[in-house]
């Protein structure tokens, strides 16, 4: 099970924070900060797996992360997930973002935080992998966007 998905930049500013288990707000912020510090210490040529910090569940949990330009994508998972599989999943998520935003960059995530959540919801749901076929995901997102646009036209 995936416990949390965090995206933050090289300075620790959160860009996407999604927990699949409940934590009180202060703890959530603490976890983001702690994860950032753990991940920041890592060089770029070492493995992408980290034992989780103390806050986020202890020895059964791992942090699996990838570093893309200015952003860290961190998935906190328990031992039931395949580590290499999660690495691929992060890649799928990022490539999907790329398709939906057309050459996605950090600014896209900043200004469209809600849209990023909606895309994520099509990939991971309730802490479990939902869909990994990028075409399906993108098609679904586009359909939903069209739906929203049509409602806006109605109002106007």
């Amino acid at each position, binding site marked *: 099970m995936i416990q949390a998905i965090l995206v933050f930049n090289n300075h620790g500013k959160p860009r996407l924070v999604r927990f699949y288990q409940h934590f009180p707000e202060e703890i959530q912020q603490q976890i983001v900060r702690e994860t950032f510090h753990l991940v920041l210490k890592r060089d770029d040529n*070492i493995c992408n797996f980290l034992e989780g910090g103390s806050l986020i569940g202890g020895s059964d949990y791992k942090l699996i992360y990838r570093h893309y330009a200015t952003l860290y994508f961190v998935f906190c998972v328990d031992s039931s997930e395949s580590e*290499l599989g999660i690495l691929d999943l992060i890649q799928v998520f990022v490539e999907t973002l790329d398709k939906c935003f057309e050459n996605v960059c950090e600014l896209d995530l900043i200004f469209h935080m809600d849209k990023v959540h909606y895309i994520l919801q099509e990939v991971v*749901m309730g802490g479990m*992998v939902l*869909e990994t076929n990028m075409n*399906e995901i993108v098609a679904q997102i586009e359909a939903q966007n069209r739906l929203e646009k049509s*409602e806006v036209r109605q109002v106007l």
Partner: protein
Amino acid sequence: MVAPSLKLQDLIEEIRGAKTQAQEREVIQKECAHIRASFREGDPLHRHRQLAKLLYVHMLGYPAHFGQMECLKLIASPRFTDKRVGYLGAMLLLDERQDAHLLITNSIKNDLSQGIQPVQGLALCTLSTMGSAEMCQDLATEVEKLLLQPSPYVRKKAILTAVHIIRKVPELSNIFLPSCAQLLHERHHGVLLGTITLITELCERSPAALRHFRKVVPQLVQKLRTLVTTGYSTEHSISGVSDPFLQVQILRLLRILGRNHEESSEAMNDLLAQVATNTDTSRNAGSAVLFETVLTIMDIPSAAGLRVLAINILGRFLLHSDKNIRYVALMSLLRLVQSDHNAVQRHRPTVVDCLQETDASLSRRALELSLALVNSSNVRAMTRELQAFLESCPPDLRADCASGILLAAERFAPTKRWHMDTILHVLTTAGTYVRDDAVANLTQLIAGAQELHAYSVRRLYSALAEDISQQPLVQVAAWCIGEYGDLLLEGNCEDIEPLQVEEEEVLALLERVLQSHMSLPATRGYALTALMKLSTRLRGDNNRIRQVVSIYGSCLDVELQQRAVEYNALFRKYDHMRAAILEKMPLVERGGPQVDEEAKESKAAAKLSEAAPVPAEPQASKLLDLLDLLDGPSEDAQHPPPLDPSPGGALVQLLDLPYAPPPPAPIPSLKVFEREGVQLNLSFIRPPGTPALLLITVTVTNSSGGDVTHFICQAAVPKSFQLQLQAPTGDTVPAQGGLPITQLFRILNPNKTPLRLKLRLTYNHFGQPVQEIFEVNNLPVETWQ
């Protein structure tokens, strides 16, 4: 009419424009005030925008609880735009702990049954993220209906929601089980993925479900085979592997179904062999599938040849250039080291090489695995490697490495001397990182091996002479020198080069330890006691030692001061006993209760300086008479053994000595006996920290004209109590108000039953023997409540 509110993007622009944290806070607080006002007004048109902004600032860490009710309103709105934000808000802001979360149950129900597909999707997503047990109960049937709907989009979401429901309310598993068989026939990968996840969850929770689903093993095998042999399919392939996520899930389910089940594993064997040999591992996706295959092969009763193949695959991965793969290989081997120890042993050299990894995650895994691979045949070689690692490893691994080596040494030491050498090496290399019990373990080891005494003391002396900064080493060395100082000075030992040590050097070294600012108070205690012991071991006169001891009599550290004062007392008043008290420790048995030898000796000194020791005679036979008079004579009223000077004998009693006077509790004392001027008083104390404990002090006074001699007091209590009698201060009470005898009773009353106490007194008075037996009446209630 409120001014048109900011769009989300504009707010974000403003926040990013803030130069300082304080400015950002200001911007956000201003905006939140607007948002609050807008919520109060209940503007339906812009509500979704306001909530979106609120969710953004929530991510940055600002409070957003006032938006919770707005989520409900948005979810209830008919517009998709509103629902989208509303459900997102519910997932981010609401949770089981707030009552508000139940209010969306109805909206979810409506959306599930009547909404368009995207809306159904939203509702399912929300339910699977934050659905509480109550919500799951209410909505389970709705979700079940959606499992077999035509649209795969909704179905795959419903399936995963079902997994969540089962996690929250396991009893609902039965609702979802029937649909699984049909769902397995699906072609849509998303639906399949969810179905496999659902079946896995069901099997993990219920043995009955596990048996039920064993039937589908052939079907799963077929599906996996299709995926593996399909080759390049644009739809689902990741780096040329067909839907590796689905493959991994199927493999995991096969593992669960095949575990401990011959028939199922036989059905999978061929396929597993095929996957293991044909998967392309040049990219991550293939490796992921291969790892899962290996784990499955190892977990089911598979053919021996297949298992060997699997472990060899892992061995190959240990040498892979990709660090992630090496990491997963180490982890997998760690999982297998218990069950397939010999197979993993074959890769020991590679594992040991991995200790040299610069990557901390990898070297940690390699360390764990190396420690797990130590056995009696490779212990010497492995310990050498691990010791080399200990010298160069990063600080956060030191503690684990040190304790790992010590543990391995304890389990597999070929000889005691090797064991001692190993521990010594660890203490000198990583002394500050060892656990606290390492010192006790080492002293126990040395104390228990007589043949090691000379060797140990010499090695420890040399190590100490070089470096007095590593505290555990210093403590053990000090203890050893104190105990076996005579052996040190003898100069001969077959196992090491002869070492000529002068008495003065030894004393000087211990004094250095005492004075060093690096020494912890506990270490100083060890050193002082060691000096004291040397006073009986060395042949020279003890002036130097006496000097040091008396200096420390005014040390600021209370513990040291107390010891020094007591040792001083030993020199001055009890010199005749000093040799006996400071005798060598008897050989300690391994595995016995950890006894602090230092505490024993200082308590011995404490006892002596408090009161003149008097042996009490055990009178076990007469005890039975007394006990017969009370219900349940089976418990014993202990009599303290005679107080002889040997440390072993005095041990039992001394450890029971209450070290500090118990704090006074206001229980009235009781006069229980009076005869011809001889009086017996009981005073009671209930120490606050131990509710079951009662301390009774018996005081015997004599106001008559004749001495009381040979006074003995015995006691008996009911069965549920435990009674201990301490040695009395004497057996004589001189006439005319001479010094009274006091004796301490310790009574444990775990069941808090009413206390009954019977006493038997025997003494000589006016030349006549006196015996009195009586039960103590009027015991205050506070003594046992």
